[in-house]
Structure formats: C-alpha cells, structure tokens
C-alpha cells in the first residue's frame, strides 16, 4: 500500500475505528504516515483544549425564554404573519445550468412516512412539473424545478405551509427569466430571492398561480399515502430508457465499495445529441457521463441500473434507481476541483449539459 492510499485510514484511526490490515501495516512502517497520525491527534487535542478554555458556563447562557406553544386555528392560519424562508431546495441545489442545456431537475427527498401531496404544475409553455411534497416531514416539504425553454428558463419553487385535510396551503415562487447573451446561465439560486405567493390548494381543483414574466401556470394536487418513486421527470414514467437517452435516477456513487456520494431524490436525463450528464460530488469534483466518447474519459459498462468503471486503479459504480440507457457502453470523465476550488462545493447536484459547451468553458464557469 502507498501513502496516498493509506492517508484516509490515518484519519479513520484517529476516530478510534479499525482499519484494513494492509493500511495498518503500512502506517506502522511509514514514518510519514506516523507523523501525519501524530499531527492529526495533536490537532484534535488542541481543538479540545481551545474549547475547554472557551467553554460557555451554564450561568453565562441566556435563560430560556419560554414561549407559548400555540396551535393556530383555521382563521388564524389564514391571517397569520409569515416569515418567508429560503427554499430548502435552493440550499441543496447550487446547480448552474448553462445556456442551451435542457436540464429538468426536481428535488424531493425520499422519506418513509406521512401523507404526500403530489403537486402538478403546468406552465404556459406546456411543460409539466410534478413534485411529491410531504405534509408531515419538513425535510421533504419543498421542491424546485429549473427548465430551459425557448428564449429563457422557467424556475419554480413549491413548499407546503400548512394543511387542513384536503385543503392545503402552499407557497409558490415562479418566474420566467429571459436568456441574456453573455450571462452565465440559469441557476436554482436565482429563485432564492423571488417573492413568494401563497395559495390554498383544494385537492382535485385547479389553482391559477402567477409566474413573473410569463402567463400563469395551473397547479393541481392529489393526496397520496406514500412518497412515490419517480423514475424520471416531466411526467415520463417509462421504465425503459428511450433510444439515445441517458438517465440517472437518484444515483449513488460508490468507490472501492464505499459510498462517495448519494444524490438522493435527484433525477436527470440527457436526451439531446452531444448532451451528457454532470454529477457534482462535493470535495471531489464533477463526473461527466456521456453516451459517446469524450477526450480523457474512461469507458464504463452499463448493466441495467448500474454503471461500472475504473479510475486510477480503483473500481467505481453508479447505482441508480432505473435502467440508465439502452446501450451497454458509456464514457465517464472525472474533472477534479483543481482550478476551481470551493466552487459549489457544499452539495451534490446533477444536470444535463452540452458536453462540447461544458468542456470548452474554463472550470470557473462550470
């Protein structure tokens, strides 16, 4: 084993865990790794010493100011003052969608309990967005969508505010943004500052919701007793991929049998010629997946909902929730964060991009 392979296990050793025998042998014999182990341990000790010196005494802490736990009545809910938070999805998705891409992305975390509102929004351009929103799990009560259309992009965000049986109060942020030459493209971050409008949605009935910069969209909803598994987006629920289509449904990236990144609830598909899928892995970089060869890419193999490939001598797998493509060959290009440190480096996200355009741009713009 080499130092670069053993160093991650040095960290695990610091955490009190067992490590593979080969790593343990290497660390025992390698002066550099032992030095690193010592330094990691010293850093932990020093941090705890700092914390001990700065410890906030109980007497210093502001006493808890008891606030009454209020359950607002129906009328109260209708008139309550509401603090408008950022959409959770905007935090989770820092996706930048380049001009010309055809990305469609819906974020709704999987969960296991509670009633679910399946919200369907049809925009004036005829596109449909479907979001499954939990009425009970606040971690799954919002979703967002960015779709590039002719002349610009439609950016939508939805969240559950409250519910009274089949009468559900939702918050909607929606805007059409025209394409401006020279701009960097469209990003879910842009929705962050949109004003939120609230609507009462009666299950089975239509609500007309305003879309800034465009005609209104029509929202409908139905209640489900579970969070459905979405195979794709845009209303297309075919299990088999279409010809030329590459599709990743909630992929998980595994390296050497260890999960590197979990794109829980994220679905993306690439349908246009020259397009591929970009998966951003925090602190690692981007993985470009294309049905045609890319310069510098490695060839992978598709077996139903599994893509296997090898990078730098290590086995990798993308495990997804549905078949990936009709063919059995695929190309993967790994672009580390070098040259673009810290860029969107907090959360996983996926997008569909023109590979030619994506690779032509400097890293800082991707």
């Amino acid at each position, binding site marked *: 084993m080499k130092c670069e392979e053993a160093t991650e296990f040095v960290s695990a050793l610091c955490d009190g865990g067992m490590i593979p025998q080969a790593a343990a042998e290497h660390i025992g014999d390698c002066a550099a790794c032992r030095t690193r182990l010592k330094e990691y341990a010293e850093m932990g000790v*020093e941090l705890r010493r700092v914390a001990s*010196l700065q410890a906030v005494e109980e007497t210093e802490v502001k006493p808890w100011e008891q606030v009454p*736990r209020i359950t607002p009545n129906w009328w109260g809910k209708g008139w309550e003052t509401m603090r408008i938070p950022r959409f959770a999805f905007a935090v989770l998705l820092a996706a930048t969608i380049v001009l010309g891409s055809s990305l469609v992305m819906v974020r709704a975390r999987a969960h296991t309990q509670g009633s679910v509102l399946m919200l369907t929004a049809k925009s004036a351009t005829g596109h449909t967005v479907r979001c499954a929103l939990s009425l009970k799990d606040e971690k799954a009560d919002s979703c967002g969508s960015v779709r590039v259309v002719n002349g610009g992009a439609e950016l939508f965000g939805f969240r559950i505010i409250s519910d009274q049986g089949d009468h559900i109060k939702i918050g909607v942020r929606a805007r059409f943004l025209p394409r401006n030459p020279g701009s960097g493209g469209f990003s879910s971050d842009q929705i962050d500052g949109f004003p939120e409008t609230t609507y009462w949605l009666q299950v089975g009935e239509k609500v007309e919701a305003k879309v800034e910069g465009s005609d209104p969209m029509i929202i409908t909803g139905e209640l489900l007793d579970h969070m459905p598994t979405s195979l794709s987006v845009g209303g297309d629920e075919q299990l088999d991929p279409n010809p030329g289509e590459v599709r990743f449904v909630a992929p998980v990236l595994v390296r050497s049998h260890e999960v590197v990144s979990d794109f829980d609830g994220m679905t993306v598909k690439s349908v246009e010629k020259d397009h591929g899928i970009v998966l951003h892995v925090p602190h690692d970089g981007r993985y470009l997946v294309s049905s045609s060869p890319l310069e510098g890419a490695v060839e992978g193999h598709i077996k139903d909902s599994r893509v296997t490939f090898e990078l730098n001598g290590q086995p990798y797998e993308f495990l997804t929730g549905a078949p990936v493509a009709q063919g059995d060959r695929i190309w993967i290009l790994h672009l580390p964060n070098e040259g673009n440190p810290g860029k969107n480096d907090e959360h996983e996200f996926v997008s569909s991009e023109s590979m030619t355009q994506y690779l032509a741009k400097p890293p800082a713009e991707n």
Partner: protein
Amino acid sequence: MPDDQQVWERIHQGDAQAFDEFYRQNAPRLELFLRHIVGNPQAAEDIMQETFTQIWSRPNGFQPERGSLRAYLFGIGRKRASEWWRTQSPKDPGTSDKTVVHRSEISPAMEDAFRRLPEEQRSLLWLREVEGHSYSELAETLEIPVGTVKSRLFATREALRKIWQSPRLPKEDA
C-alpha cells in the same frame, strides 16, 4: 438518566420543565459550537435561542429512529448558522472573524488555522473532535452518508494540517 426517547416524549407533550432541563444541559455547548461557526458571539447566542425555540414550537421534527437528539439539535443549529451566513454580506462588520471569542488569549495558531477552514469543515471537525459525535450522528447532523463523513473528515484534517503547519500565516490584526 432518561434516554432521548423519554426526553423527547416529555417535550412533545409540552412539559416545560423537561425542556428547560434539556436547554440547560445543551445550550452552553451548542452556543460554543455556533460561536466557532459564525464567529460572532451575539449572533451565536441568537441562533442558539432560535434553535431551541424551533424545537419547542415545532416538536414533530425529531425522529428517534433516524438519530440522536443531540445530532438533531446540532443539525438545526448548524442549518440556522448556514442561513445566517447567507444573509451576511462579505464585508458586513457584524460577521467579522475578528469577533471570535477570546482569540488572543489562547492557542492563536490553532484558532487562526481553524477559522480559515470553510464553515462546513469547521462544523464537521468541531462536532467530531470537541463534541465527540459518532460517524452516524455526523451523518444525521450534516445530512450526508456515513461514507462521505469519513472522507470529509480526512479532507478536513488534511486541510487544517496544511494551514496549521503553514509558516506564513498572515499576522493577525490587532
């Protein structure tokens, strides 16, 4: 000592005394953690109070089967700290790193190095090394897989080591 489930059931039922006890046990550590994440004692105190207010006001959020109460508490605190950061402009005087508590009194090299890490890395390392959170608690708090926790801990330690050992740390302003 009551376990998480028992504490939570009492809080859920509106037992103010149970909540007060929970607050007194956890507020000091949460506030210290937040001071290191936001670098502003006043903001840290506000966020700490907001965190407990959220837990008291919306007692349906904790699911014992998903993780510990401690991980849940720090997870909310960290999210609120992240929201606070997003509302700050880069040059907002209220967010100045210079407000980190007691910095000049103790271990300036480590504190300075630690402060240079990104917020997410500071959270991760603090919760692991100071709070002693397990991998699964970190995964719950940070909403990432356990495998990612391990790799990020390694990356964070390596980043801190490089900064800490750097012979050219710029001299701090008085």
